[in-house]
């Protein structure tokens, strides 16, 4: 049985290759035909989805075997003296899960885009980018070594850049795209450094080999300081995820990235690319595990901080997509701190469920935005529940899922993370997580109540979206409901397949789960009280804490700080150096030229044009040279004319 499975795994490279092929086809062949472009792209991603399902099925059937021994296929990519890099595919439960999530969400988004992007001039370009993105993301998931991962990591960054700036004529989109690329680049700098140091220390970048090399090196007592070295590496490598997954302080690009088309936000900036950082940490978990405990503690702390930080900003935002973006940041923080507290499978589980319900909500938001002709302020919306039933119901499912209501997907994943945090001895982080859960429920329901329940606005004429948009919503809603059930207690549950180190079977702690649910219900209730029943006035709260409101509204002024740094520090530095270059470096060059010219000007005075003068100088020189040779010392005397002239010797 394993044999035939391997035959299947041999072909795993087709999963990223098919969308790439579709990218090439669209770019070079079907560019002019809109219908063909989208057909090619969707067919490719659906085929990938089919293969991903087949692989996931095989992985589940293989059971323990594949958990212990991932199926790895490699081909040589770069081979020079002292540097050998392979490309390949790794199939283990982690990558199989990711493949399924990515292909599913990508397919849904591409189908959804048929409706959302209808009539857009850049249709073919859009689908080309989508295919390229899918290809890069899948290639990253399948990476067998850090360099391959890094390459695709950067390529998804490129696609993100291109898609955020898809409507390049909007200045805001252009700036957002630039910002996204630049911010993640800062993180990638650390990742690249970490990668280089890892290679120079252990001589390999292959995940399996690296892990083995590290453990041998740690066991070697003669090598002192390996643990410290690994810790430094871990921090450097972690900079990549900080940038990509929008952890504080490199989170600033994600809210701005909402300038892209909404399906793009759903796919890239909610479900797939932004979790790449989480995936990287999961893939490299051994690195953080081998490092000293501070590394994981740092991750946990930063994740928790990001979670509550972003959630607090989300509370006061008015743009529907920005609320979702801050919510994404907050949930990414959840996944990070889950990894930090050692809840490996909880984090991966949350990654999966979050992908479903956040994509769902983004697509729902897109549906709303399209219906309202690109209005994004939630206060311009209202009473959509009746006009857009499918969108409304599916969105409601998403809200319940993210608020952690049983039996929706978010309940199981969130609960597992929080329970693990407490059990592994991180009470503060647990408390932060719990409070974040409360905030999440609050601001999500605020969004829902204002948009769907509030008073209808007469200037809006909303209508339900076409089937191409509602079907993906329904499918994603389905997964948002049932997605969590795979972690129900049992032997072959999610944690059995996706775990790190020793397998612990943890039963759901119903007490803790109850607390989480209560926190969520509190949030929902508070939102209901404020925005539906108007028992508490939002304005009065704002009026009481104007400073806090302003701080939150402006996202703690992190953006302004960065802008200030870029403009004043970097720009100023550039200006100073440019001044230096033009005036000092160039000045020296020009100064030399001027000196040459000046001395020329001076010396040409000697060219009086008087031939007699020239002759005098000439003969004077003859006399002087004669004197030197006649009465000079040393070697010159060998040429003494008094001794050598006269007669043939």
């Amino acid at each position: 049985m394993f044999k035939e499975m391997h035959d299947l795994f041999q072909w795993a490279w087709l999963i990223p290759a098919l969308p790439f092929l579709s990218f090439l086809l669209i770019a070079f062949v079907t560019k002019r035909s809109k219908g063909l472009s989208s057909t090619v792209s969707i067919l490719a991603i659906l085929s990938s989805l089919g293969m991903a399902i087949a692989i996931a099925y095989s992985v589940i059937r293989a059971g323990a075997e594949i958990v212990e021994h991932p199926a790895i296929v490699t081909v040589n990519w770069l081979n020079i003296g002292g540097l050998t890099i392979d490309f390949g595919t790794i199939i283990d439960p982690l990558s199989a899960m990711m493949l399924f999530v990515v292909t599913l969400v990508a397919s849904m988004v591409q189908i959804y885009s048929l409706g959302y992007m209808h009539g857009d001039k850049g249709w073919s370009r859009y689908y080309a980018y989508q295919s390229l993105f899918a290809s890069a993301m899948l290639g990253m998931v399948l990476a067998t070594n850090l360099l391959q991962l890094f390459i695709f990591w950067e390529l998804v960054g490129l696609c993100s850049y291109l898609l955020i700036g898809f409507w390049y004529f909007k200045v805001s989109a252009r700036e957002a795209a630039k910002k996204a690329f630049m911010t993640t680049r800062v993180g990638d700098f650390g990742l690249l450094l970490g990668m280089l140091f890892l290679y120079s220390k252990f001589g390999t970048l292959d995940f399996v080999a690296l892990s083995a090399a590290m453990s041998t090196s740690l066991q070697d007592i003669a090598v002192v300081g390996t643990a410290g070295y690994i810790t430094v590496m871990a921090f450097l490598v972690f900079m990549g995820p900080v940038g990509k997954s929008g952890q504080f302080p490199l989170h600033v690009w994600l809210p701005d990235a909402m300038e892209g088309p909404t399906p793009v936000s759903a796919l890239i900036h909610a479900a797939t690319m932004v979790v790449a950082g989480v995936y990287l940490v999961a893939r490299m978990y051994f690195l953080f595990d081998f490092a000293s405990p501070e590394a994981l503690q740092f991750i946990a702390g930063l994740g928790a901080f990001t979670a509550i930080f972003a959630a607090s900003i989300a509370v006061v935002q008015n743009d529907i997509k920005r609320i979702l973006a801050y919510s994404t940041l907050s949930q990414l923080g959840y996944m990070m701190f889950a990894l930090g507290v050692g809840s490996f499978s909880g984090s991966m589980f949350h990654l999966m469920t979050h992908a479903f319900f956040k994509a769902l909500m983004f697509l729902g938001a897109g549906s709303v935005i399209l219906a309202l002709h690109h209005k994004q302020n939630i206060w311009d919306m209202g009473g959509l529940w009746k006009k857009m039933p499918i969108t409304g119901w599916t969105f409601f499912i998403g809200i319940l899922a993210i608020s952690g209501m049983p039996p929706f997907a978010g309940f199981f994943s969130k609960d597992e993370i929080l329970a693990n945090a407490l059990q592994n001895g991180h009470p503060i982080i647990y408390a932060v997580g719990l409070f974040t859960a409360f905030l999440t429920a609050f601001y999500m329901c605020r969004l829902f109540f204002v948009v769907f329940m509030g008073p209808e606005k007469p200037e809006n004429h909303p209508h339900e979206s076409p089937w191409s948009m509602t079907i993906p919503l329904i499918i994603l809603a389905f997964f948002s409901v049932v997605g969590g059930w795979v972690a129900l207690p049992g032997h072959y549950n999610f944690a059995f397949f996706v775990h790190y180190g020793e397998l612990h079977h943890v039963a759901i702690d119903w007490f803790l789960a109850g607390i989480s649910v209560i926190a969520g219900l509190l949030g929902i209730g508070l939102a209901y009280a404020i925005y539906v029943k108007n028992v508490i006035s939002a304005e009065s709260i704002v009026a009481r804490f104007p400073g806090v409101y302003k701080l939150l509204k402006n996202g703690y002024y992190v953006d302004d700080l960065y802008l200030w740094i870029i403009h004043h520090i970097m720009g100023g530095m550039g200006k100073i150096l440019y001044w230096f270059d033009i005036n000092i470096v160039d000045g020296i060059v020009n100064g030399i030229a001027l000196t040459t010219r000046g001395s020329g000007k001076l010396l040409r005075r000697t060219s009086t044009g008087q031939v007699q003068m020239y002759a005098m100088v000439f003969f004077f020189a003859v006399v002087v040279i004669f004197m030197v040779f006649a009465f000079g010392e040393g070697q010159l005397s060998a040429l003494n004319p008094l001794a050598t002239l006269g007669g043939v010797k």
Partner: protein
Amino acid sequence: MSALPTVSSLSMLLPFTLLAPLVAMLLIVFLPKEETKTIKLVAAMGMFVSLALSIYAFFAYNIEQGGMQFTLTIPWIPDLGVNLALGVDGLSLPMLLLTNLIGFSSIYASWNMDKRVKEYFILLLILIAGVMGTFIARDLFIFFLFYEIVVIPIYIMVIIWGSSKRVTKEYAGMKLTIYLLIGSAFLLVGMIALYLAAAAGGNPTFMFEELAARQDLYSPAFQKVAFALMIIGFGSLISMFPFHSWSPDGYAGAPTAVSMIHAGVLKKIGGYGLIRLGIYVLPVGASFWAPYIATLAVISVLYAAFIALVQKDMKYVVGYSSVSHMGYVIIAIAALNPTAVTGAVAMMFAHGVMAALFFAMIGFIYEKTHTRNISELGGLAHQVPRLATGFVIAGMASLGLPGTVNFVAEFTIFIAAIKVLPVHTVLGIAGIIFTAVYILRIIANVMFGPRRSEWDHLTDIRGPELVPLVLLAFVIFLGGMFPNILMGLIDSGVNSSGLAEVLETVSQAKIGGLF
């Protein structure tokens, strides 16, 4: 040295490659100057022959065998030991291919040239042939000869066809030429010193291999002095800080094709020379100067990147960026490590293709809009989408995006250099952040943004104008996706030419505490 030319298989390949543009040039000389179309076609055909031959050489080169291949040796001035010796190995073959790729593209990038067309293409072809000659020379004398041939057409082309912006084109042309000549003067002194030292035991020679084989004739003190001269000569050619100031001004003043060739290949003669003549022939001197060079290189990287941030003219941005990128090449050379040298050669190739594409695109923009000022442009992706595509590709290659050949090269450099020069390399890698900042800035401000009606009359590039974009972008991606094609060749060059052993010896000596 036998009096008869040593004959190897395909020994006439390189002479034909070298002569094709010259034959085309002679044909153009006899064409009436009104026949601009024919002149351009002849030039393109000449370069096509060269390109085809060098691609053939690239794939016909026997990597297993290694060493100099397609060699041709004709004694020229026997008394001085000068031989007309041609040949390529893994170090020079990529450079030869690069020259022809860029040369061929540059003909098409100047397709709309309408001022003194005949003279322009004559000079351009001489220029290309000269650059080609430096890379296929196996003899220092011939190398230097071709290098000097290159300088003259550049001067004339900048003065006549250039453009005056911040500085006048006359100033730019003078600066470029004088810088190169001063550099070559230092080089000449170093070259003669080396020649005399090598001829101390009789049997004078200029051949690179012979010079390298006579290691024991060069005392450490001599090596240090001679290498310092080479560093000034080649360093100003590769625009190492503080000898870089010709580069931005020169590119800004030069016509498109000259900028392409200059940034694309001519600059690489510096790096190539440092490898072939510097560390290969004078390893002890190289290891003495390496830390200082590395420091200057890091300064180049960061300093130029910062300056590129605040430039207003696109060509200045790319000009400073090329100074910055060449810093990586110098870091790699200073690392004195076979892998790093492989990376350095690859980086030169990668940067050459990228810079040529960038300059070609900027040239088209300038030709169509008559401005290169970033603030006057904007939203060009609406009117000229293909041009925008090329621009973005060049930009992405410039910031070392994976999938482009530039990434492979940078990565190889970093991975090899970080072992030897960790601090320098980390600082150098920090440069990629600033690179991203300035590249994204010009892409965003020139190509993206709201449609501007004043550029509605522009036509997108089409027909022959597409050649540089298609050819160079294809090479960028091919090299990035299948790096073994390029890297394998360079690697064999480093290992089979004896460079690797030399470097091993030097690094061991360093550890042994000789210095």
